[in-house]
């Protein structure tokens, strides 16, 4: 590592940044523990607060919330059988069973250690791959960016929710919403209906807090609250025994690599990574029958994978300026509000922010490991806070976060409408995540599409002429057609023709 990079990494250790990292990690852990707000909505709410801190400390805080939530999610999965966020759903399978057998401490410790190791592995990889990709991305023209965003849309639709069509529909709705406001090329005002606040575009924070925060409050309200039983854990029980450590080491290593690679793909990377790791561990285990009844590998692998995925997901954001998950989309929104433009030039223009944020991952992971083990009992008790007191607080925070973004009441109306639509969408099986990503990718997609045509003098084939573009379009086409063809081939090979569902 060069002297310059090292000095930039030391930026993380400045008092402001350490405090921001600590605050972000703590807020993230709380968000992960409490069912309700996910990391994307929590980050959106905190953005106005981070503006006071400046770009480096502000973004360190936002990143801390992102990876801190992954740590927090495991605590309630193991002790209460309630995942704080979707990436920890799979941890309930073996984590809660271990807790019922009196091994809650060991499960929590392995989850925390696995998260720490994976977080560190992913940061090391991020540190090397992000600048490499950023240099490659310098060769990207508008056509390549357009192909990349199309590829992102296609891959994301394959990986979110139960229906590809519904995911694509949500993505298109996001792209449509992104066209509200100034046209990115000519500056013509579109779809703002004369509303002054809408001329600058629909507030990203209002949409995010509405779809994730307000809709969640509605959903909690519609459901009936069940009393939770929290399994006890004592500090001295936190040490896993030698056998448990031995059995966890390889799943943590595999989960770290797998999670990092999945993090590079568009979609809810952390959730996909945890499920993929669980499936992999079960398939290669000598004792697959133990999975679901308290196998430590079923905790170690997925917990490592979901944390590594957070690091992986930062690569497309930092080096290409393209977020492929809702949380990184909010982080992009935060960066833009701080006057920092992520992408190939970030490393050249703002090395302090780039390396400061990367350095904070090391620091944050260490903080989380130290804090999570002794404070695990307190975090678990937070789940007992009844929703009748928690949800009104979330409502107020959502309103303040949304209003504070532009100090515009119109945004609060947008938040409410997004909340109602988000609630109805969930009832009808539509996920909000693709819409948020579409909303962020929209301006990049439109700008690159129109620029490509303008530069080439209207030649449509310029959208796929270069070898990079062809490769990306090829992968996108494969991603569309392979899922349609493979079941037919499989059915034909088995001699049982089946209808495409």
């Amino acid at each position: 590592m060069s002297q310059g990079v090292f000095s930039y990494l030391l930026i993380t250790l400045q008092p402001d940044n350490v405090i921001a990292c600590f605050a972000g990690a703590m807020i993230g852990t709380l968000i992960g523990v409490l069912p309700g707000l996910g990391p994307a909505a929590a980050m959106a709410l905190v953005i106005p607060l981070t503006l006071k801190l400046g770009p480096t400390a502000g973004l360190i805080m936002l990143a801390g919330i992102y990876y801190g939530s992954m740590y927090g999610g495991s605590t309630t999965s193991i002790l209460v059988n309630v995942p704080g966020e979707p990436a920890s759903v799979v941890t309930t399978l073996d984590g809660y069973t271990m807790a019922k057998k009196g091994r809650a401490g060991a499960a929590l410790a392995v989850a925390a250690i696995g998260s720490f190791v994976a977080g560190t592995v992913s940061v090391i990889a991020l540190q090397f791959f992000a600048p490499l990709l950023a240099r490659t991305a310098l060769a990207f023209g508008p056509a390549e960016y357009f192909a990349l965003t199309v590829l992102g849309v296609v891959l994301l639709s394959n990986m979110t929710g139960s229906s590809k069509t519904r995911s694509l529909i949500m993505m298109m709705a996001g792209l449509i919403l992104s066209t509200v406001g100034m046209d990115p090329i000519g500056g013509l005002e579109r779809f703002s209906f004369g509303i002054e606040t809408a001329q600058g575009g629909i507030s990203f924070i209002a949409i995010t807090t509405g779809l994730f925060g307000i809709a969640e409050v509605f959903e909690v309200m519609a459901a009936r609250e069940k009393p939770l039983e929290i399994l006890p854990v004592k500090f001295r029980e936190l040490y896993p025994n030698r056998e448990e450590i031995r059995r966890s080491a390889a799943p943590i290593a595999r989960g770290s690599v797998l999670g990092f690679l999945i993090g590079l793909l568009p979609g809810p990377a952390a959730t996909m990574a945890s499920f993929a790791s669980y499936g992999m561990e079960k398939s290669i285990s000598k004792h697959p029958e133990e999975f679901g009844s308290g196998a430590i590998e079923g905790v170690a692998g997925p917990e490592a994978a979901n944390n590594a995925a957070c690091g992986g997901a930062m690569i497309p954001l930092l080096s290409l300026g393209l977020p492929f998950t809702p949380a990184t989309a909010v982080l992009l929104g935060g960066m833009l509000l701080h006057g920092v433009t992520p992408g190939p030039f970030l490393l050249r223009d703002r090395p302090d922010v780039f390396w400061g944020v990367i350095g904070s991952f090391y620091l944050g992971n260490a903080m989380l490991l130290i804090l999570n083990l002794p404070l695990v009992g307190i975090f678990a008790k937070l789940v007992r806070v009844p929703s009748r007191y928690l949800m009104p607080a979330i409502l107020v925070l959502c309103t303040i976060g949304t209003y504070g973004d532009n100090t515009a009441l119109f945004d609060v109306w947008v938040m409410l409408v997004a909340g109602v639509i988000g609630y109805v969408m969930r009832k009808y099986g539509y996920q909000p995540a693709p819409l948020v990503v579409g909303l962020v990718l929209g301006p990049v997609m439109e700008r690159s599409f129109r620029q490509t045509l303008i530069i080439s003098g209207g030649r449509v084939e310029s959208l796929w002429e270069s070898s990079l573009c062809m490769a990306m379009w090829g992968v996108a086409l494969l991603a569309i057609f392979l899922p349609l063809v493979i079941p037919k081939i499989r059915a034909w090979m088995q001699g049982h023709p089946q209808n495409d569902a």
Partner: protein
Amino acid sequence: MTPRKEIVSSSVLILFSLTFLIYTTRYPLDDWESPGPAVFPLLAGGVLLLLAAWQLIRAFLAPKTSDRAVQKGSLVTSLQAFFHENQGEAKVFALTALLIAYILLMQWIGFFVSTFLLTILSSRLMEAKGWIKPIVLSAGIGLFCYSLFEVWLKLSFPRGILF
């Protein structure tokens, strides 16, 4: 998702995309050499329309299954079952109405006073018992938000006749 829900949601999406596409024609398309501001919205709206139509067709072609088991019994029993099933939705409706009133009141009685009232009422709506705890909670949240956002972060919130 049941075919009935799929048909309803697809129809709403088709209506929305058609309205959007018609409205988009107000903006210039220009030509391929210099595509105008209507091109991208038309593409996105067109793809949305196709996807929604595809989903609608699939829902119609799906094997007919009853969306819910046919409930035998009197009209009163059916109505009771309906209201029991949708108790949660009634609360969501009430909270939405409360939030609308909150946003409207915000400019009149001020942000912090209306927030204080929202917290109490929403807490009560979520089955908080008594008034003391919701009032204490509301005062706590209000004080915290005022200190953090208005005093420290210097964000300005709507002021009304009271505060």
